[in-house]
């Protein structure tokens, strides 16, 4: 490996040829502040438009200051990262950015969690010396995401995520100069575009330009209504990340405190989405085996591979981009929706509450879930199965507002009968988890044999596209896994081109899976947080006594008392769905 020698802040170091000053500085233990730069190392995602000019450094012999994020180290370079000239320039740049930024930090959704705000604090900005016109734009509210581009600093992270990682391609920089904004085509609103609401743009936005629609007030209103029975369900990925909002180390499991906090907030029943995840495995696993058996018996028309369908961002993606393939994904609804359907029928009957008097709230790591629960097909006579979905971040705010000391809460359990779950259910929160859970059940049901080892390491990891072959007692089952919509696209294109040899594929829209969802505590570019959350998920699974969905006693009870068996008519009606063609059509007129 060729190296170059540079002097940085009087330190002489040797780095690989092609290393940028920013990365070299990191190796030397020198911190250079950045704003538009983003590097999710463990996911190989990098954004370096060199647009903000915050990371400028002085390079001897070069007249202008150089942006460290893109300037490559050359042999013999002498660099100074924080002399007076550099510090003054950085502060000036920041003041210029702030001179065209709304000053409503006090009421902004990102107050306390904003990279621009933090930088203004760190740089000690006390006066903005530049006055001028303020750029203004209309606010765009969609079912899940709010665009307030007055606060946009044109860092282009959202554009990079949407175009390069997710390949949805909704956002682009439009217009020019002072008038430039990041917007959808023709500056239409997000809800008219092909946006999947995956929320990855929100997850990387450094300011309050992209935030989630806040449903906290609706939840508070429901809790305050004495005529309503308010039921809450919470997704697996939430328990592996919520603690971060209260100062805990990433990867701390807070399941017990989460249940306790929800009870303190006043929810009548504190249930677990994981219960519904076990239910999803029962239905989807049966569907997988049904298709597989028909295929092995010579049926040429049965659609394979079967694709998982619990991710609404992913569902939105194929409805828009691959609508002619919409009979390939599983017809099973997502755990969130299955929970709502069961809560408002089976459970409501059990406790003698009318459907209209029950409010189902979900706590999700996801912003697309806000859109999903509003889908028309998930309602009965206008009453939705799930009324509101709030994100991990919104729940943290709600807990803080309610004067609950989260860190000191004693662990509590979820209520029954919709609160018991297995290890297979909790791994839904990470990439590879849904299919591993499905395999644990499908294997035993198909072969009739007990699994000696329930851990399928070959399905785990962070690589964007993974494959494995699982031996079902002599029958090789080919599994594919993709996370990040750009990678889902690759696998879908293979299926379209007839090149796919998989039997089942798990797809998650967000890099890392749900643990990296758009509603999770912001990682601000540190991908090690995602790895820590993933480890926590598998740790919770390993610690459970029951680790296979079909062994969940409350699931068995639900089928005996209410549903009959998987894919029964009742199951079909409540727990399955169909998909729609949402693509644009080029109609030719004479």
């Amino acid at each position, binding site marked *: 490996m060729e190296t170059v020698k540079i002097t940085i802040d009087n330190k002489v170091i040797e780095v690989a040829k092609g290393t940028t000053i920013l990365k070299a500085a990191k190796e030397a233990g020198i911190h250079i502040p950045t704003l538009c730069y983003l590097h999710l190392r463990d996911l190989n995602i990098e954004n370096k438009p060199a647009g903000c000019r915050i990371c400028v450094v002085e390079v001897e012999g070069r007249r202008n200051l150089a942006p460290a994020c893109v300037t490559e180290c050359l042999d013999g370079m002498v660099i100074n990262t924080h002399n007076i000239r550099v510090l003054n320039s950085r502060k000036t740049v920041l003041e210029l950015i702030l001179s065209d930024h709304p000053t409503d930090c006090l009421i902004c959704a990102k107050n306390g969690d904003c990279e621009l705000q933090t930088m203004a604090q760190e740089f000690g900005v006390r006066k903005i010396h530049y006055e001028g016109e303020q750029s203004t734009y209309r606010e765009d509210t969609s079912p899940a995401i709010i665009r307030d581009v007055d606060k946009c600093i044109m860092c282009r992270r959202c554009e990079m995520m949407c175009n390069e990682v997710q390949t949805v391609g909704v956002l682009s920089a439009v217009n020019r100069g002072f008038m430039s904004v990041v917007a959808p085509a023709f500056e239409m609103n997000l809800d008219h575009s092909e946006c999947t609401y995956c929320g990855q743009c929100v997850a990387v936005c450094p300011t309050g330009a992209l935030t989630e629609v806040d449903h906290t007030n609706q939840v508070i209103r429901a809790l305050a209504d004495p005529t309503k029975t308010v039921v809450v369900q919470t997704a697996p990925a939430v328990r592996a990340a919520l603690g971060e909002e209260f100062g805990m180390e990433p990867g701390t499991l807070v399941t017990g405190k989460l249940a306790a906090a929800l009870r303190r907030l006043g929810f009548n029943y504190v249930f677990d989405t994981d219960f519904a995840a076990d239910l999803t495995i029962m239905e989807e696993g049966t569907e997988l085996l049904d298709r597989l058996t028909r295929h092995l018996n010579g049926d040429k028309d049965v659609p394979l591979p079967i694709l998982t369908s619990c991710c609404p961002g992913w569902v939105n993606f194929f409805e828009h981009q691959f609508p002619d393939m919409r009979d390939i994904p599983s017809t099973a609804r997502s755990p969130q929706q299955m929970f709502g359907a069961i809560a408002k029928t089976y459970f409501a009957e059990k406790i003698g509450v009318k459907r209209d008097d029950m409010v189902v709230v979900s706590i999700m790591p996801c912003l697309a879930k806000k859109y999903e629960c509003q889908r028309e097909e998930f309602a009965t006579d206008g009453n939705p199965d799930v009324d509101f979905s709030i994100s991990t971040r919104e729940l943290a705010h709600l807990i803080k507002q309610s004067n609950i000391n989260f860190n000191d809460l004693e662990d509590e359990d979820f209520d029954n009968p919709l609160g018991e779950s297995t290890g297979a259910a909790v791994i839904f929160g990470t990439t590879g988890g849904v299919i591993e859970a499905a395999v644990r059940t499908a294997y035993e049901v198909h072969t009739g044999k007990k699994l000696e080892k329930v851990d399928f390491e070959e399905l785990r990891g962070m690589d964007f596209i993974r494959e494995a072959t699982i031996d079902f007692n002599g029958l090789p089952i080919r599994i594919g896994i993709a996370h990040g919509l750009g990678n889902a696209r690759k696998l879908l294109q293979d299926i379209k081109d007839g090149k796919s040899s998989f039997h089942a594929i798990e797809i998650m829209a967000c890099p890392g899976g749900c643990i990296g969802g758009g509603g999770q505590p912001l990682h601000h570019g540190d991908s090690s947080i995602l790895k820590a959350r993933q480890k926590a998920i598998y740790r919770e699974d390993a610690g459970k006594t029951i680790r296979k969905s079909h062994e969940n006693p409350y699931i068995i009870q639900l089928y005996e008392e209410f549903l009959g068996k998987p894919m029964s008519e009742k199951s079909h009606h409540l727990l399955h769905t169909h998909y729609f063609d949402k693509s*644009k059509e080029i109609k030719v007129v004479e």
Partner: protein
Amino acid sequence: MANIKLSAEKLDELKAICKSFKNDKGELINVLHKAQGLFGYLPAEVQEVIAKELSVSVAHVYGVVSFYSFFTMLPKGEYPVSICLGTACYVRGAEKVIDEFKRILNINVGETSPDGKFSLACLRCVGACGLAPVVLVGEKVYGRVAPDGVKDIVAEYTK
């Protein structure tokens, strides 16, 4: 979600333009240039087709169209009116001429009249400073235009 409508003939010509550049996404600007030549402007439908043919997002195409002032999403009028704002014309009262055109045609600069007859644009110096203020309607040059002469110019085209 928009359903796109184009005449079959024009659609084929547009696809042929893309093909002539090998559907290379690096040739987006050239493709847009030719497409504007074909249609007179770049409506949303045309941008959607180009996006599909070149395998880029329509947001990206729109980003390029909105960046360059040459590309327009509004059809130009049958009689495009351009008023020179170069130094000589400016000091000889070009602004008052613009105001009068705006008043008579009832449109703003950059817009096209609803009946599609007139559109209004401003130009940088066209080099006919001896004739300031200068107005172009299509290719025809009008010199020494005064505000009260505007209505006569417009009348030439509304007969």
